[in-house]
């Protein structure tokens, strides 16, 4: 057992857990802000997919990974603008809008993949972000190789967690976002621009989901394939509920999901006596079970999913 805990296999497992958690951290953190402002963005799966594709393609074309990252974020932002027009300005049903976005994105990406990479071909590989060893810290046994020998995007993801928590709970902007999600009518009466706040939160969330998608191609796989997101966008939304709209708890959820995912990958590799499809199911089943347990006690933003209109008399 001790051997296992210090062995290379275990370190590999932990490091993989972290990497698998990162796209979820990005997308979920953004969604925390979006939902805190009272908007449910169900389109994350679509945004992540587009972000992964655009990010990958832009990096391929430019030969610069950072251009890819920015392009992924920008594509997320653009889709979020569309969602915001429907959700915030027009007061449409947020569930329908989100699902519509996912379906549209899936169709669009399949099409573009066919056109640009000729579908059947294995898309060209580019070198993804490479790990950066942090001196001294990376030499600590187990922890070093787990946490301090990762690529730059992984470090950024983990630094964003406390940063976002501070913004949400300690700044005037965070207070505005939370207030708008609790009671938009009161917020409006107190001079807060509900529409602008929700737009910003939604655009920000879209950008983060685009970043999460770009990480999949640029920071993790180094390649693009159809359905690369594999439901991670939905999991990211589930994690927001799991995390009770709190960045730290969302991080815990992302690590849990990443851990189970990393575990099943290793079990598959070791040739466990189960069809691999069941292994693949494992993280998703676990997410559902945990959510059932947790979401019963949860209390989200009171105005989540409720469109705000100004002169409607109540």
């Amino acid at each position, binding site marked *: 057992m001790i051997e296992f805990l210090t062995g290379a296999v275990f370190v590999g497992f932990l490091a993989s857990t972290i990497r698998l958690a990162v796209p979820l951290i990005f997308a979920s953190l953004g969604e925390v802000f979006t939902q805190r402002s009272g908007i449910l963005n169900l389109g994350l799966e679509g945004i992540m997919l587009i972000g992964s594709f655009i990010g990958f393609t832009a990096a391929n074309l430019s030969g610069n990974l950072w251009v890819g990252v920015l392009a992924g974020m920008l594509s997320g932002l653009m889709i979020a603008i569309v969602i915001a027009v429907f959700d915030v300005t027009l007061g449409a049903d947020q569930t329908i809008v989100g699902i519509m976005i996912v379906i549209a994105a899936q169709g669009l990406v399949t099409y573009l993949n066919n056109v640009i990479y000729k579908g059947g071909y294995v898309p060209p590989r580019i070198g993804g972000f490479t790990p950066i060893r942090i001196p001294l810290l990376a030499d600590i046994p187990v922890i070093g190789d787990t946490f301090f020998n990762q690529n730059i995007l992984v470090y950024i993801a983990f630094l964003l967690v406390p940063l976002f928590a501070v913004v949400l709970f*300690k*700044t*005037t*902007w965070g*207070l*505005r976002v*939370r*207030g708008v999600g*609790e*009671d938009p*009518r*009161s*917020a*409006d*009466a*107190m*001079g*807060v*621009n509900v529409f602008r706040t929700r737009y910003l939160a939604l655009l920000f969330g879209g950008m983060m989901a685009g970043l999460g998608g770009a990480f999949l191609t640029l920071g993790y796989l180094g390649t693009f394939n159809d359905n690369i997101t594999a439901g991670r966008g939905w999991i990211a939304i589930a994690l927001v509920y799991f995390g009770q709209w709190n960045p730290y708890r969302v991080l815990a959820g992302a690590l849990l999901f990443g851990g189970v995912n990393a575990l099943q990958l290793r079990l598959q590799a070791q040739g466990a006596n189960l069809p691999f499809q069941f292994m693949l199911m494992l993280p998703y089943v676990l997410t559902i079970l945990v959510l059932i347990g947790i979401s019963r006690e949860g209390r989200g933003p*009171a105005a989540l999913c409720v469109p705000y209109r*100004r*002169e409607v*008399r*109540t």
Partner: protein
Amino acid sequence: MTESPYRPASGIVEMIGITKRFGDVLANDRLDFSAQWGEVHALLGENGAGKTTLMSILSGLYRADAGQVRLRGNPAQIHSPRDAIEHGIGMVHQHFMLIKPFTVAENMVFGLKSPREPWLDLDGVAERVAELSNRYGLAVNPRARIQDLSVGAQQRVEIIKALYRGADILVLDEPTSVLTPQEAEELFKILRELAGQSHTVIFITHKLDEVIAVADRITVLRDGRRIATVGKAETDKADLARMMVGREVLFRLEKSSTTPGPEILAIKDLWAHGADGRPALRGLSFSLRAGEILGVAGVDGNGQGELAQVIMGTRRATAGHIYLDGKEVTHASPKERLMLGVGYIPEDRNAVGLIGSFSVGENTILNTHFSPPYARGIMLDRRAMVADAERLIREFDVKTAGHGERAARLSGGNLQKLVLAREVHRDPRALIAAQPTRGLDVGATEYVRRRLLEQRERGRAILLISADLEEVLTLSDRILVVYEGAMTGLLDAKDVEIGKLGLMMAGTKQPVAIH
């Protein structure tokens, strides 16, 4: 600063020719209004007279379709609540505009720039709140969460919030509707204090006694128009009532004396949770007899709503018993209770009492459609429904285009008449009437009240749950006072002292006088 509260030539607020339309409804019709510096100005009118709309325009929540607003002698463009705040206008709405999970301090600065931008400076805020508290006698703890405060305290937070944001024009919308008589007294003192310290207070109400108690001048609105603006000294209650309603008003309803019959409904040590999962009813016991109206008095939100729901079976009792004609129905389904003869006028007629997208006729058989004459086997007999619906529409004077009109198109008063018609038509032995006249105009209110008294004379047992204290006092034979879901008193309506009643509503237990 000038000492005199009056400076006649200086209308600090002037609204000229304000018109505002909501769909087909003309809420404000070329309205003029002006308030002066340092006065308490009452805006008096019935529900739907356009008072709240006018003040929502002043505070930037609504935009006028036509008309002009002038502040301190200059034209002002108020396009949003933020503009209003910058012009020194603070509005205390009937439904408080506070973020409930936030603390008092967080609500103060919500939406404002912080001196330590982008960081919040909640300690600085707390100091400033304490200062304002002291200066105007508004007791409030800046670190308390809004959801943990009493309604009266939340209202004080609203006033402080307006002052914190630099308001010197303070608008209050029906501020006493959620207060006990004592809390209302307190509030009036605060308003006088504010006016004395050179604030202008505009006070929306439909209660004549309050106008007489606190206002310097009064503007009366009716049907979206201004009827008059008068000084308090030049008018009296009867005069104001006439202007408000447009005809002579009787302040007393005829109530015959009846002798209560046998016990119809008995409640024994009833407990239930509220929507927040905390106990809303804490061991309530009472009995309701044939031919009497038992009024439930209490500040809104002290378990009255839950009581009606538990009696009807739409909310589970966690302990205790409910008996109907001596038969236990504590765990009976709502339908069983209806069939046993309980009538229900729910608090929220739109969400619970009716289905807006159904026709008026369909709404009259919502809780009888499964039995003859409306049901024949599995088929609905629409002809029977239509025949009865038309009779009820006539009998209860429901203003509608006909039995086929969608219920959602009816006005509040007519909807309530429809619910009343349906319930009375079923001829229940006990009638639970929750806020039966809330939001109705004087005419409809009078009608509903007369019908309730009629049911009482016919020997029906009526439980009247109402936040309108005057209604409880005029209609009831006995009054049950509740506070936080428990009884604090049971009084004979003939000898009620308002002061004592107010204390009970605020939670002071009194020995039970009668049983």
